[in-house]
């Protein structure tokens, strides 16, 4: 199978994630969409590593996973905090800051 297909799949996943960020209101789901985008990147890295025949891309994928995990920690903390205050995880409810 042409590894390029994985790249296309990665792009699709990335797009789905991006669209999810745009259309979903729930902060948690938005955040998960971002995670989806990160994972799409990982898929691309691994696929490209395969195409180039080296392991650098795979190494990167591991790093990304670690970073993503750290991000989850921080992100959930922040989202929890605002959820407790507002009793809502809807992003659209948080719009005190605007012009």
């Amino acid at each position, binding site marked *: 199978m042409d590894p390029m297909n994985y790249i296309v799949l990665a792009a699709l996943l990335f797009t789905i994630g991006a669209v999810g*960020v745009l*259309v979903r209101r729930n902060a948690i789901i938005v955040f998960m969409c971002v995670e989806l985008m990160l994972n799409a990147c990982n898929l691309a890295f691994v696929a490209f590593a395969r195409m180039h025949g080296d392991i650098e891309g795979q190494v990167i994928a591991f790093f990304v996973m670690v970073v993503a995990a750290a991000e989850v920690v921080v992100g959930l903390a922040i989202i929890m905090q605002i959820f407790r205050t507002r009793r809502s995880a809807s992003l659209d409810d*948080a719009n005190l800051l605007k*012009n």
Partner: protein
Amino acid sequence: MAVVTHHAYLAAEPAVATAADSPVLSFAWLLFALPLAGAAILLLGGRRTDKWGHLLGTLLPVASFVLAALILFDLLGRAGDARSVSVPVYEWFTVGGFSAGVDLLVDPLSISFALLITFVGSLIHVYSIGYMAEDPGRRRFFAYLNLFVAAMLVLVLADNFVLLFLGWEGVGLASYLLIGFWQYKPSAATAAKKAFLINRVGDLGLLVAMMIMFAVLGAVSFSEVFAAVPGASDGILLAIGLLLLLGACGKSAQLPLQAWLLDAMEGPTPVSALIHAATMVTAGVYLIVRAGPIFEGAPVAQTAVVTVGAATMLAGGIIASAKDDIKKSLAGSTMSQIGMMVLAAGLGPVGYVAAIAHLITHGFFKAGLFLGAGSVMHAMNEGVDMRRYGGLAAKMPITFATFGVGYLAIIGVPLLSGWWTKESIISATFGVGGTAGLVLGSAVILGALLTAFYMSRMVFMTFLGKPRWEEGVHPHESPASMTVPMVLLAIGSLALGAFLMLGDRFATFLAPATGAEVHHFDVAHAFTAPYGIAALVVLVLGVAAAWAIYLRKPVAETAPKGNLVTVAASRELYGNEINEGLVMRPGQVLTKALAVIEDKVIDAAVHGLGAGVRDSSSGLGRAQTGFARSYALTMLFGAVIVAATLAVRL
């Protein structure tokens, strides 16, 4: 004080030789420096000089007169062609090829004027001591008079057009200050401003003329300009000529810039006598004569001069015939007489002597008449309406006598001053020959008729007939300080003409300056020639007509309704209305229009730009909705932009 500087400068860099050989001439600058110093002392000295200011102010013009007389004798001691002396004082300003110096030209023409100015000026200073005795601003008055004398002397002594312009504007300033001397009267303030403004329009001509001279002829000094005239094109000379005429019109109240002179009578009467009769208003004639070489090279310009002069002469006469205000009537007369001089000056060399001679005699009798009028006004509690005069001859014998002599002189009673000079103008006009000569000559005769009429009218209404005085008016003769100058001027009005014209004395004296051949004045011919007889006939007719209207019948105390002609004449031939319609109204409209443009176009454009930025600010700012998801959308939009701009290179 400025004088000292000049002198120091002079010492450091000796002036050109032409003047240095005569100690008197090298002090020619004192002519104007003395009265200028007087003005400075009186203005800066403040109240400390109140006590003796008028005396100093009188003394200095007298000193100038003495100096002018000395210079005259110096000139007379020279050969005819050596009587034109250039006296450089100091370099005024020089840039590149342009140079304007404070250089004086002492020649018969300028010294004639200097004598007239200082003599009449001194007399009027003396007169003013009495006339202004009660005025709290007398010191200031004398300062302004001194300033005027200084400026007028600069005007006539200048050796180049720029210095002449300095004097020209200087007399304008003095005139402004003196017309508006009683500035708390709105009419005086308005008249002063009007005089200055209309003069400015004339000055515009002079300014542009100087620009052309420098640009085309390469200089602004008389000698260099006149030397360049033969090489200049007709168009240039015509342009310069017409522009100089415009300047002359402004200063000499010739059509179409005549409107200010009658209003200028708002000033104290000595001012009217000195500035607006004897001296300043004749500056236009001086300019035309002085710039003779230019006009001689531009026949069309000369025609314009003659036309303007003739038209003003008649218009002035008509206005003078209808005015009931004694000073305004005299002012109309001045317009008329100067018109006559301008006409003569426009004839070229043949007319110059006649014009200048008439100018000088006119200076005497018209000053005398004005001083007489002032004396009358003094007696009549400053009333000027001749309809409320009458029968003053008995109450004011000296005034009547001197006024009478002036009257006889101006209407041209034979052998009095006015007759000599008016005859020579008439002779010069007819001397042109052809239809032109006939038309012009007839015009002058007509002018003489008008003169005889309105002057007789004035004398009849003022001194003869029954008193029509307002209540509480007790006429009395004026003090000696006022009557003595009047007497002296009357003597001049009697005899000066004969002195100048007999034996062609003045013509011979003036010849080196004007370049004219001496035109013999034949006394016998003046009585026998048709024009001479015609002049005598119109004289009688004019007096008779005035007698018929103003002496035979009692004069109404208020002006009758009048017909179309008299109404027009009393409204100064609608000169003010014409100015208003042609200049002021459109000007006001333009001012308003530009104010609107300033506000609604130029400033609005800038403010509109600002408002536009502000509007787009709130518009763009709306993208900052506060919704995180819309921010993400904006970012995606940014991604599209990034992709698009990168794809450019694909």
